[in-house]
């Protein structure tokens, strides 16, 4: 059981919640995630990154985008409500040390998991270059937070409605071409964005770490649903990851696996929406 302490809408489809989860707050480190379930009998287990935590308040922060039925239902819960299942922190924490210059690239909702990592890297004494991007202005989140910890800050949108009109790979390429190459890149966002960031850095030989958001069930290394091909090996994202060397990840396979249940999920989502609309009409 975790009580919702705070709920905020960050953009049209993106919400922030602070949950009461003192044990998780105490143990978690940057890069780790939780799994939550809105209904203990019939709910789906959804993994979400821990975007921040406060040991004093005993709280963790999650930031999520509404993409389907479960995230929609979560977005309809309110301050004071209890989420029956919140379990974590899961996954291996990000390895933080002083690498030198690190480029943090965040795409869309990926900025949420990137934030605690960028923060930790900065604290460890790295020169942090931050690039964040989204399809349009409305989808940009955590701009101020990211800006405040960055030594250099670049913001772009696909349609040019805010910041530079570009995909994040463009400024990333420029940074790689500088006289002193960055020591490392961390890219978090939609799989397609992480794939192209990895392709961008590959010719420059800059180590690129990505954080994978595969489908998960248990999150403890029991089911194998989260498996990905990394180099010649099969890895389980929930216990071996979620972070991997982007140059070794088979993104195409991962993307097709993410779509395993697309049709069923879309049906569930639209069915739920229809019911909602009917209910509202009934109320009128």
């Amino acid at each position: 059981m975790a009580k919702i302490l705070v709920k905020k809408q960050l953009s049209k489809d993106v919400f922030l919640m602070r949950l009461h989860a003192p044990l998780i707050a105490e143990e978690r480190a940057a890069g780790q995630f939780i799994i939550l379930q809105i209904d203990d009998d019939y709910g789906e287990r959804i993994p979400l990154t821990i975007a921040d935590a406060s040991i004093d308040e005993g709280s963790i922060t999650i930031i999520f985008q509404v993409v389907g039925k479960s995230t929609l239902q979560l977005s309809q819960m309110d301050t004071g409500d209890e989420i029956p299942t919140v379990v974590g922190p899961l996954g291996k924490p990000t390895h933080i040390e002083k690498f030198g210059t690190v480029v943090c690239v965040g795409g869309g909702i990926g900025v949420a998991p990137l934030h605690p990592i960028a923060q930790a890297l900065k604290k460890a004494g790295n020169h942090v270059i931050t690039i964040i991007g989204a399809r349009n202005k409305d989808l940009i989140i955590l701009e101020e937070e990211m800006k405040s910890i960055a030594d250099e800050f670049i913001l772009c949108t696909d349609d040019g409605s805010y910041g530079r009109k570009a995909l994040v790979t463009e400024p990333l390429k420029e940074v790689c071409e500088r006289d002193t190459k960055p020591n490392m890149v961390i890219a978090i966002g939609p799989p397609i964005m992480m794939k192209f960031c990895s392709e961008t850095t590959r010719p420059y030989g800059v180590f690129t770490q990505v954080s994978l958001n595969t489908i998960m069930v248990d999150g403890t290394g029991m089911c194998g649903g989260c498996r990905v091909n990394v180099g010649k090996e099969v890895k389980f994202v929930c216990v071996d990851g979620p972070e991997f060397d982007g140059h070794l990840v088979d993104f195409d396979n991962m993307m097709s696996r993410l779509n395993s249940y697309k049709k069923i999920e879309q049906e569930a989502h639209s069915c739920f929406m229809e019911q909602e609309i009917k209910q509202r009409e009934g109320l009128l």
Partner: protein
Amino acid sequence: MNHHTPEQLTEEAKKIIVEYLDKIDDMKPKERIKIPPQEMPSQDPIVRSSNLDEVALGYTIEQARIEAMRCLQCVKKTCVEDCPVQIDIPRFINHIAHAEFESAAAVIKEASLLPAICGRVCPQETQCQSNCAVGKALKDVDKSVAIGRLERFIADWERATGKIAIPEVKPETGKKVAIVGSGPAGLVVAADCRREGHHVTIFEAFHKLGGVLRYGIPEFRLPNDIIDKEIEVLKAMGVEFKTNFVVGRTRKLTDLIEKDGYHAIFVGTGAGLPMFMGIEGESLVGVFSANEYLTRANLMRAFDKGHADTPIYNSVNVAVLGGGNVAMDAARMAKRLGAKNVYVVYRRTEVEMPARKEEVAHAKEEGIEFYFLQNAKKIIGDENGRVKAMECLRYELGEPDQSGRRRPVVIPNSEFILDVDTVIVAIGNGSNPLISQTTPQMNVNKWGNIIVDETQKTSIDRIFAGGDIVLGAATVILAMGEGRRAAASINKMLAEEIEKEKAIIN
């Protein structure tokens, strides 16, 4: 096989029992051997292959008594020798023959804590029933006294009559025992340690209790309310449960001792990391580990398509790789989820299959097809990365290997294509990685299984382990056996400490 309805079996039993009741204690072995073995009443195969209700329905009183009368009450009790927890089998069976069901229950409880579960899932044909004198005399192990069914009968009778006794708990000792994992091993340790008056907390990673009993074994073999009942008993004894708690992550294992004041820990985290074949095409969409498939269907209730949010793959033609209980459960579940054709592809022959015989028989009745001496070579995908077929190879039996089973050998150029859209891999599990990953000082073997001594103690003081995390994927009864041994060691350790503390105060 001809399906007999429960009504037919009951009628028949009622008719014939009259003949035996008069001479219940006077029959010669020859006569007893002639008593017809009682068939287990079961749901109609066609009806059951689209529902999740229990397949085996349990003996009626008359059937149980007739079956019990078949027992020869041997002096050399081979059945007891072959039982991992040494239940006094002939004694409890004799009570059943005489309709003394409460006494029968008491005999079983001396040795086994979860008879309703073991009676349903133990591989009796390789344990107690394997050398039963009756089966030997009739030269057919299937005609041994049906010890497992009788055990289940007693457990069900106890539940139905509300006679389940809550074990007595000794006065509080002030000692705290933490149990990691709520599978059969953990549940048994909880009961045994709580009885001694220790405070017991079970930590479970999932939101529901029972381990594999809940998320792996489907309800058509082991209904959830049976597990719930066992857990209710533990709760009534005062055992505390903490779900959604991943030891190693939510709290370090050793912190439970150092920060939270537990005096002993039992690690029963079970098997983990499903194994795959390592063949081409295993990462295609439509390839699942049996663990994932069954967890979605059981724990996450994806079987209930109208209500559950967790999706499950829509399949028409399914191949299941493997020959154990896990493979049988996955195959039969796929059928119940609407698959038209389900093929079990197994490298060896039916004789070598490790699955319980009853499950294989039930699977066949439900229309599951068995492809023996065949194995997957590669899985073939369509342009969207989804499974569309599987290439297989045929095998023949060669020389015996270390396990004494004849080793299957590939027949060259025997490739053929099986049209399937789903492949479920059920070829075993590695060990659960979480504890060893987060507790580097714990000694594990090269497969990641925790190493324990003969008292089930690990390389870390006050920490014990048992069940699948020690044995590798094993059985419910072996996990329980290890749990009992660990509990005895924990109880002994704590009792000695309490003695010492008393000595100091005095």
